[in-house]
């Protein structure tokens, strides 16, 4: 998804106007308040700390260049979450040709309650497979899938954010899920 798509995916009701370049203090305030949210949303999609940091930088650089979006304070979070998701999907698409499963020795995460190391690695590989599969979806489908499954948003919330109908969200989600399930099935079949 190119940078311009961030505006183009929104319906006319949700068109975002731009204010002049934000004052340093204003941008810093937004950064300080929301950098955690952006980083975590990026990490969920990329699964990689370095990439998540890249996404964090990209999101705020874009805001710095293109102006602070005129959204309410309460909606800034939703806006930044979408920006992070889109930027992260861009990055995953960039890496999708790579067959390496990146080592994550610095990953400070244990998803399960200390299972055996083998099963932990297995679960980690499945998560990476899911991420790659999401990266291979189309821009809209990838965004909807990530907002639903990684960010935990409901269909109505996603429909409001994207300016489309709930039915549209449901259909896109259904197709995206089938595609991801298919990739997971192929992945598991190769490994058995």
């Amino acid at each position, binding site marked *: 998804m190119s940078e311009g798509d961030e505006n183009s995916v929104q319906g006319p009701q949700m068109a975002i106007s731009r204010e002049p370049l934000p004052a340093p203090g204003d941008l810093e305030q937004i950064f300080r308040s929301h950098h955690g949210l952006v980083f975590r949303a990026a990490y969920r999609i990329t699964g990689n700390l370095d990439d998540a940091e890249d996404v964090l930088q990209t999101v705020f650089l874009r805001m710095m260049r293109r102006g602070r979006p005129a959204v309410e304070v309460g909606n800034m979070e939703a806006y930044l979450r979408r920006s992070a998701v889109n930027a992260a999907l861009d990055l995953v698409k960039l890496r999708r040709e790579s067959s390496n499963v990146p080592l994550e020795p610095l990953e400070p995460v244990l998803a399960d309650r*200390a299972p055996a190391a083998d099963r932990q690695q297995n679960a980690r590989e499945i998560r990476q497979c899911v991420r790659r599969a999401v990266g291979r979806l189309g821009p809209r489908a990838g965004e909807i899938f990530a907002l639903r*499954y990684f960010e*935990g948003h409901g269909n109505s919330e996603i429909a409001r954010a994207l300016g489309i109908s709930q039915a549209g969200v449901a259909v896109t989600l259904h197709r995206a899920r089938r595609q991801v399930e298919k990739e997971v099935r192929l992945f598991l079949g190769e490994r058995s």
Partner: protein
Amino acid sequence: MKQREVLEKAAAEIRGEQVERSVIDAAAARVWERISAPREKQTGPAPIRIRGCADFQALIPSYLDRTLPEARKLLLEDHTRECVACRHAVEAARSGDVQSIGPRPARRAPMRPEWKWAIAAALTIGTGLGIFAFRDEILPVPGGSRAVVRNVAGFVYRVSDNGGTGLPAGAVLRDREGVRTAKGSGAILRLADGSLVEMRERSELAVSRKWSGTTIQLRRGSVIVQAARQRSGHLYVATRDCLVSVKGTVFSVNAGVKGSRVSVIEGEVHVEQGRQTKVLHSGDQTATSAQLEPVSIRDEVSWSRDSNRYFALLGEFSAIQKQLESSPGAPLRYSSKLLPYVPDGAVVYVAIPNPGSRLAEAWNLIQQRMQESEALRQWWNQHQAGAGPEEILQKVRAFSDYLGDEIVLALAPGKSGGMDAMLMAEVTRPDLMTYLRQFHQPNEILMSAENNIFVATTRASWLNPAPGNFSHGALYARIREAYGKGVSWLCAADMEQILAQSVHKEQAMSGLGIGDVKTLVFERKDLAGKTDNRAQIEFGQVRRGVASWLAAPAPMGALDYISPDAALTASFVVKSPKSMVEDLLQLDPQVSASLAEFEARTGVNVLSDLAGPLGGDAAIALDGPVLPMPSWKVVVEVYDPARLESTIEKLVAAWNQEKPAAPIHLDQEQSGGRTFYHIRGDRALFQAEYTFSDGYLIAAPTRELLMRALQNRQTGYTLAHAPGFRSLLPNDPYPNCSAVVYQNLGPVIGPIASQFPSLSTLAASTAPTLVCAYGEPQRITVAGTGNLPVLNLAAMGGIFGQLTHRP
């Protein structure tokens, strides 16, 4: 497992992945430094003219090192979206970068000296423990072969990247080397520890070994394992969706596309799937998927060359187990012939059913089956070395034959300090004393068998018991009340007498309300297959002081924020927190003085600003991943959130004023119409998030856990509604409880216990347990079902030992 389930699970794990706050903050600091730096500082090498792909690719190293000027970076990124060659070049360069291990040099801000020392100290202290705990990951794997192919029927081959090569009997398998049986073929492998693994046709497995034990990775198919005794570590069988831990057994594992099915022929196995652990015994079976229907264990192992032996063993164990289960346990006793003979002044009364009949029944059954079953005889001879267990069983059983249905123990304060004991039982055979004379008797224990009552005691005057004044006391009345409802195991204590001799100060006892305790009674009985444990503390008057803190049973709204997956939960309703503080103030004058000083320093009135806004409903839980940081939750009822928040801010301000070198940061953020508060100590040593919702304050270490708690309540996915939790609730007339303590630590402790043997006993009891408390005006009752370590007789004995000890 269905693909959808795999996807849902992976998505849930991705959602639940946590990154340490310090990592995020560090990344944010670096990003801000880069994007906020003045543009002149962002220039890198001298600009070059970009004419084609070669020029773009020349920028890649700087781009990956993050030293490329912003404008050039945007140009490169735009170009790689359209140019496949350059995109691949970036990817190739990045792949080498991704595989580097360790932090990027010169990226982080210089570390403060005190942090270095703290980290060095922590590493030094933790290294020894860490090496042991993570020896599997740190130390090189033990050397040697993993298995030897003992028998081959048909075609068996070694799995490798070059295809398969046939394996003859005697072939050696190395670590993680795969072996597969062809159609119509089978094999028996012998592991290094002596265990035997029989493989069915079309099965594939590999054996790996770590310091914690040996794992059979069953990739597909079916195996039967005869596990040898493990000298060190454990034996596991791992499929794609479960882990079977073995404790010297014979069992079968069948792994397929639909899931895995585990069947036990002999012994005990633990099957771990996700966060759940099941314990299976002989004749038990479990599957990891509902689509995988159960089959008889006979059918499950019918393909084995030893199937007849397994059938025979399985039949024997199953028959013995069923017969024991169907035979009624000792019936409840509604009266006691021994109670009137308890001596005057007794302060402790213990009554248990005569265990002899149950032991005799089990022993007779085993003996009878062994006569009829060669398989069972062979198994017994193999597992029971020496006559130890048999001899002990015989002695206990023989002695029990001379006694009646009940055995009573009474304790009374001795004249010279300590306690005098008296053991009583009805005599059913006249030659009891003749039988006992063949054993050595300690001098301090006196025995008699007069009037059909056997007595063993440390006090001579008790040898010929007669009804006395014990029947006039409060303890006797309480014991009679218990018998009226039927007892199995009973332990009762006259706390009034015991505490009267206590060395504790009367004032403190009065302030705590403990001085009013009259009796303490423990009971255990089996009702319709469910074990009911109950303890009751009776007070001489309406509860006061600390003893009055537990409120009457009431609905616990705090539990609605706890999920069914919680490992540990304590929820309680108490009387007004303000009253509780007032009780504390009355306990000790020093408390009042300290409180006054605290109020003067902070400007916070503890009674009205801190205790006043609070309600009496609260819960504390361990609800979520335990590592790397325990996922705790605290939920407290709050009547006045604004006042409480103002109090918290005052306390933080007061702290920061007193300790400017170690400030506490309190931030707030609006999100989704809700205010979230983030509190953290300096240098991120402590942090927590909290919010107010529907009359409760909910606190957790991270925003994600907080959101999950709120979702639990909204969706009704709560512990209180979980079937497993509800099935543990005791049978009684109370619709609510005053307090609840629930544990489901098995999934947490099980994996850790394999690393720390001292936890193995705790891990052995992996079933969830629940204890409920009920507060009445003059009584507190604590009840629970299942095997509760805190309500067993050994624990009771320990408690009484503590209370009755007089220096």
